[in-house]
């Protein structure tokens, strides 16, 4: 166990380091810099441009800038965002909690829903309800999050006006309202984006959980549990589920990078000002320190979450988690 933990942690650190290097190299190949649009084309003399580039260190050779950037990163400094006129750390510390709120809510909702569907399907294996839910979950897996988001936005948001279609709140001066109204407003705005992500999570979880449950249903201990007169729900909940949940948690960890990728689009569609939207804006503005920080953070988030789910899977079902799916 200790060996596994150490290996995984080292692996996670290596991933982050490699990603940081790769993103930096990539951005060096990109044309333009933050001052290309702001300073060129007008009547600003070349000396002024050169001075601003020098002030932000953009005129230094790439290798030196990478060392400086990595060194600063090691000291916890992410740099200055020229497009937001803020430090990257300030931008990120606003955006990351919002993304975590969105993805976290979606994960919890989706996991619970997916498990429920899988249990129901297993209980009624091969009956009509199993088939119907199977078609639904297939649709949920097959329909990319952003398409579902557009549909939800069209009908639930724009046509029927049940939910707001953009932003994280509609109360202007936030401090003037009592906290419960602020919370209710936030929840109301969270509902659509989080539900859309939750549906895709639920579909994936349901399909894998159903397969895993059916895999253990013919085991001896299930027959024993039934023979001693347990209700089918109790058999499923207490005997089948604990033995079938490990691989699903591990698999969820593997699916997390794509969930975070999906969240990027969802944030853009719903104007949710988390890391995804920040990344888009930063890319358009060629705000490299912010892009670097966003991609790096998304990867760190994915790696941390994956490592965590691995450990959880191991704790929940030590034997099962190690078996390949």
């Amino acid at each position: 166990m200790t060996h596994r933990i150490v290996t995984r942690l080292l692996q996670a650190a290596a991933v982050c380091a490699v990603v940081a290097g790769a993103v930096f190299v990539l951005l060096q190949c990109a044309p333009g810099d933050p001052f290309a649009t702001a300073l060129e084309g007008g009547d600003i003399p070349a000396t002024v441009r050169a001075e601003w580039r020098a002030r932000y260190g953009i005129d230094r050779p790439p290798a030196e800038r990478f060392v400086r950037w990595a060194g600063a990163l090691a000291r916890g400094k992410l740099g200055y965002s020229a497009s937001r006129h803020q430090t990257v750390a300030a931008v990120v510390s606003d955006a990351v909690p919002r993304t975590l709120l969105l993805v976290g809510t979606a994960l919890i909702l989706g996991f619970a829903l997916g498990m429920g569907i899988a249990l129901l399907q297993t209980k009624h294996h091969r009956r009509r309800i199993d088939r119907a839910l199977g078609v639904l979950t297939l649709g949920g897996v097959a329909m990319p999050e952003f398409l579902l988001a557009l549909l939800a936005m069209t009908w639930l948001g724009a046509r029927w006006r049940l939910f707001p279609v953009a932003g994280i709140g509609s109360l202007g001066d936030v401090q003037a309202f009592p906290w419960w109204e602020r919370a209710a407003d936030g929840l109301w705005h969270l509902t659509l984006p989080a539900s859309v992500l939750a549906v895709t999570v639920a579909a994936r979880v349901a399909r894998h959980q159903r397969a895993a449950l059916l895999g253990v249903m013919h085991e001896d201990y299930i027959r024993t549990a039934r023979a001693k007169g347990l209700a089918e729900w109790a058999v499923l909940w207490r005997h089948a589920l604990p033995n079938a949940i490990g691989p699903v948690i591990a698999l969820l960890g593997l699916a997390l990078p794509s969930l975070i990728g999906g969240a990027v689009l969802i944030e853009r569609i719903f104007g949710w000002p988390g890391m995804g939207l920040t990344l888009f804006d930063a890319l358009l503005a060629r705000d490299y320190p912010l892009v670097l920080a966003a991609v790096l953070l998304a990867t760190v988030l994915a790696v941390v979450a994956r490592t965590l789910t691995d450990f959880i899977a191991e704790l929940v079902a030590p034997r099962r988690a190690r078996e390949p799916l």
Partner: protein
Amino acid sequence: MTPHAWRRLMDDRPAVLAAAVLTTAAVVSLLAPWLAPYDPTVQPDPVALRLIGPSVQHPFGTDPFSRDVFSRVLYGARVSLGVAFGAMLLSVSLGAALGALAAVLGGWVDLAISALVDILIAMPRLLVVIALVATFGTLSPWWLVALIGGSGWLTTARIVRGEFRDHLNRDYVLAARALGATRWRIVWQHLLPAVAPQIAVAAALALAAVIPLEAALSFVGLGIQPPLPSWGNILLDGTDYLTSAWWLVVFPVGAVTMTVSAALVLADRLRVAIAGEERAP
């Protein structure tokens, strides 16, 4: 794939249905010029004919530029599925080659490839591709194929490496080696055909992953550029008219969802058909 597994697949209704959907989509995209009632890029009357709902003349309605959405979806299939198919081929052959190399050569090659897979698989693929496209500016469809395909080989490499390692210890490989077959002859003549069904599963899964990726890229304006239609950028045209023109959203969404679910079902049933083979004595 053995005749038995093939037979099982042919008797499996969902599998046949999924294959039929994919074949239809492929045929439609190949025959788009003959099937489409209108030119997908021509804008006959951007004032009088814009945003007309589905009718007999325009089964899927018209878009804000008065173009026929049905024709655009048909031509879009050509672009979207073309890019997806190309990217799938690239990622599967790359993955199969690297997975096979890792398994057969072993040693540090295996270590290096496996480490690379472990590192890259942790990165959100969509994010990486978006960052790449955004830094290099908009790309031609060929570059999209290269980029999407080049970022998707990890799963295939994992599957192929695992299967190859499993097969390398089997008796028939030992027998071939005893007969003096070279390493690459064994790979080419024995291992690849034996692992082909699993590669087919990986290919179907890759297709299911790649179609939404192209749609997402085009939807955020980084993929296929107008006036060339793709399922993603038809959606992009529709985002400003969500309340008034539902047909701009529903039809491309339906096209993507149908092809992706067909690919997923095919992968799933193929796996079942092969697994039946493994279980049989």
